[in-house]
């Protein structure tokens, strides 16, 4: 009985738990609808003195007007609502935080200033402590925090603030001596490895090492920009930093862009007959948005989210029917650093065994985790699939489903047998171990390969959140009597 390692198969609603098990993703539970308007962006900032977490979240009305930046506390109780006086969805909504000072920035709205734990006001320049420099008006653009300074990129120009230290200085001071420019329009600024400033532009990815920030006029000590990667970006929110590495969206998916390389993570589902949901694909993935996750980048595309673990290469699209307005527009962190998803319709916690709201229970269908891929097939043989065995720890509540070439499936509660080997249960009650093979009834449908080979594709689905799923598939096939024609001519 041949075995296939299905860990590399295409995944839908699959993730790997910290314990290392491959599982159906956990539930998505909406903690708060926030203001009830359309949420468009947000960031979480922890107060370094009190350890409280504050959430800065931008929203608009249903028509995309009246952009308002709100401050929420840890319980998502609104503390301040600052109306920016601007209409439109802000691109590149970003924050720069140094000590307790925060700048909220976007190219599409005035820059806001605040103290973490206090409110927001319109940012106004502050004179420099250096009498030989003159403060500039505070620019608007995309922001990042590098070496105790705020960095704001506006077009192709970079503004770097004075450093903040116990002796003085504020991130509201930008002077002409610390204005830089890059060859292309800057669409992303991030803190990279070693505290370096990484600028993702339309003319490449440039890096300025942290050593350049050791002097008052940045780079005057000889540390200079270097071209790290020739990747070109053309939109905001198309790059992010995860564990010091910079990822950017490409036409086919995303790639590491802080060093030159030719590796690319592809986001399209493979083209194969499908039963479990439509294929996720895009002609150009740069239209999506990328956010920093715990283990890898998160790519939001409409109502779907691609979740990646860069350590083991696992990638999976997640979808849900919890709400027609579910659309990830940012990520937040709670006071323990746990990731939360910011969606157009509120804040979602990743956890639990159902999709729904925090208080009213399940409002979505049980999640179906799917692995899909081909069964190896020599080109000269017509194969008939006779049986397939796969395991999933669904207990008595969920179902295991198989589909072959998108046409046939068998679904039902697996039958326990007497061998008593433990695969896993989704209940902590002491009910005894269950071994759950699910042999198919004999499939008499034969699949003829006239011209193609290797298109005996399967989809395996387990329906229930958090169910551990098997990483191998056992199957049996039989050959038909007549060999298939090959390009060598008829036998």
């Amino acid at each position, binding site marked *: 009985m041949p075995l296939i390692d299905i860990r590399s198969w295409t995944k839908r609603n699959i993730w790997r738990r910290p314990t290392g098990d491959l599982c159906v993703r956990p539930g998505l539970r909406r903690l708060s609808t926030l203001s009830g308007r359309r949420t468009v962006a947000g960031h979480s900032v922890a107060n370094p*003195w009190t350890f409280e977490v504050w959430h800065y979240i931008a929203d608009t009305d249903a028509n995309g007007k009246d952009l308002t930046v709100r401050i929420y506390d840890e319980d998502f109780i609104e503390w301040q609502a600052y109306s920016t006086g601007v209409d439109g969805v802000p691109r590149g909504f970003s924050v720069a935080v140094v000590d307790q000072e925060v700048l909220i920035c976007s190219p599409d709205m005035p820059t806001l200033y605040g*103290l973490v734990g206090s*409110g927001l006001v319109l940012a106004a320049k502050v004179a420099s402590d250096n009498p030989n420099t003159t403060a500039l008006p505070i620019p608007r653009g995309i922001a990042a925090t590098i070496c105790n300074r705020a960095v704001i990129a506006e077009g192709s120009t970079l503004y770097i603030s004075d450093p903040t230290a116990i002796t003085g200085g504020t991130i509201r001071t930008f002077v002409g001596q610390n204005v830089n420019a890059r060859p292309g329009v800057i669409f992303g600024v991030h803190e990279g490895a070693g505290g370096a400033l990484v600028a993702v532009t339309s003319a490449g990815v440039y890096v300025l090492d942290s050593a350049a920030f050791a002097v008052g006029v940045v780079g005057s000590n000889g540390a200079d920009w270097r071209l790290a990667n020739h990747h070109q970006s053309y939109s905001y929110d198309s790059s992010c930093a995860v564990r010091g590495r910079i990822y950017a969206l490409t036409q086919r998916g995303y790639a590491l862009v802080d060093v030159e390389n030719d590796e690319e993570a592809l986001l399209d589902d493979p083209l194969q007959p499908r039963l479990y949901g439509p294929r996720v694909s895009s002609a150009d993935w740069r239209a999506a948005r990328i956010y920093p996750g715990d283990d890898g980048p998160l790519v939001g595309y409409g109502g779907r989210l691609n979740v990646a673990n860069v350590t083991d290469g696992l990638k999976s699209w997640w979808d849900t029917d919890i709400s027609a307005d579910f659309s990830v527009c940012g990520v937040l962190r709670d006071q323990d650093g746990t990731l939360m998803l910011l969606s157009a319709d509120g804040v979602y916690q990743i956890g639990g065994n159902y999709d729904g709201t925090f208080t009213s229970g399940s409002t979505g269908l049980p999640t179906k985790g799917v692995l899909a891929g081909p069964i190896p097939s020599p080109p000269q043989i017509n194969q008939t699939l006779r049986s397939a065995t796969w395991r999933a720890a669904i207990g008595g509540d969920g179902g295991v489903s198989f589909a072959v070439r998108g046409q046939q499936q068998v679904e039902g509660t697996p039958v326990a047998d007497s061998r008593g080997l433990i695969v896993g249960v989704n209940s902590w009650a002491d009910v005894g171990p269950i071994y759950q093979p699910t042999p198919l009834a004999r499939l008499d449908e034969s699949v003829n390969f006239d011209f193609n080979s290797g298109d005996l594709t399967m989809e395996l689905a387990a329906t229930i959140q958090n169910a551990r799923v098997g990483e191998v598939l056992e199957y049996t096939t039989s050959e038909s009597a007549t060999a298939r024609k090959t390009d060598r001519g008829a036998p």
Partner: protein
Amino acid sequence: MTIPVGLITAADIQAEYDTLLTALQSQALRGQKDFCIPLMVPALTTSTALSARIVDFTAPDDLELRTLRCSVTSGTASIVVTAALTVTDGDTTYLLDNTVSVSVTSVVGTAHGNVDARATTNPIRVRLLRGVRYRLSISSPSATATNVSAALVLRTRRRRR
């Protein structure tokens, strides 16, 4: 709280009680508690020493500014008295460069004024930050005023860690 008019029934009282209790419970769950920092000068003259018309305090934790109030009881009208919240060393950063003050013009009798910073949309929306020294002060008046008082109402949050 809404004070009913006309015939007040037991159900009216129960409803108002329930509403107030719910609000207090939700505040208690969030560990929120309002407290007041008062300042009173029985006889405020043009030569009253600074030390007699200020109170300095260091915020033990982040405190939300709720209201700043001032009242003057006088037998003379048109005396202007101003109560203000500032940072003791003059650094306006810790009030986000806001001017938090209220001026009251006396009447024959008692006159009041207040700055209400409670609404989330209020332009003055600040929290006094932990470890920063703030000052509640009453300005030197244009003429002698009696019974001048100022009060800061601040709100705490439960410390979680």
